[in-house]
């Protein structure tokens, strides 16, 4: 097991700066999620933490592990790589669900479907419009 003194000072400086950068970006993203006025603006804020913030902390961890173990250790980079791949996908699902619900609720400012054969026709075919509509409206 290695000790802190094995890692050169400049590596510690770079790691510290990158960890602080990542933490600050995650905090800014979370404050955005808390403070922005509506859902469609909030959904943008969380990507700060999952992209640049994640890579900053991942690179810091990889650099630190590499110097502390005395060999190349890139495995911490798997975490930000995984986040970068998966977070846009789950955010996209969430966004679709939100657009669907807000359209049914008739929230102003939500874009309608493109063309007649698109989303709206799909909804009507599903026969779910009446049920979900009353549920979503009842909540407001």
């Amino acid at each position, binding site marked *: 097991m290695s000790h802190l003194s094995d890692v050169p000072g400049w590596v510690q400086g770079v790691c510290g700066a990158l960890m*602080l950068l990542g*933490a600050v970006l*995650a905090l800014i993203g979370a404050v955005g999620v808390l403070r922005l006025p509506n859902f469609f603006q909030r959904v943008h804020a969380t990507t700060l*933490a999952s992209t640049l913030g*994640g890579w900053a902390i991942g690179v810091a961890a990889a650099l630190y592990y590499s110097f502390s173990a005395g060999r190349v250790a890139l495995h911490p980079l798997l*975490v930000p790589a*995984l986040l970068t791949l998966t977070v846009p996908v789950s955010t996209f699902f969430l966004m679709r669900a939100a657009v669907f619900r807000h359209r049914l609720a008739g929230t102003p400012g939500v874009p309608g479907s493109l063309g007649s054969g698109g989303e709206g026709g799909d909804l009507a075919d599903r026969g779910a419009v009446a049920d979900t509509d009353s549920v979503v409206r009842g909540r407001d």
Partner: protein
Amino acid sequence: MNPIFATALWLAPVLLLLAMACALLRLLLGPSAEDRILALDTLYVAAALLVLVLGVRANGGGAYFEVALLIALLGFASTSAMAKFVLRGEVVE
């Protein structure tokens, strides 16, 4: 020890905990179901990053990296499942 590193070792976890607190507040407030799911998403990303930072703090000991990977994977699965649930009313059709 380098002063920037010494500062980062305690400041970065504090900042990440603050981020998780903001997300938790949105999770409790969040007017709609989408807001709560988004807050949970933010919460798990911050948690994965926090575990990575704690791993650097622990100086290579423990299984911090594996835990961060698990949080990231399970977070993706849960967010997708909940988004699907909000969209269709059930997860597996």
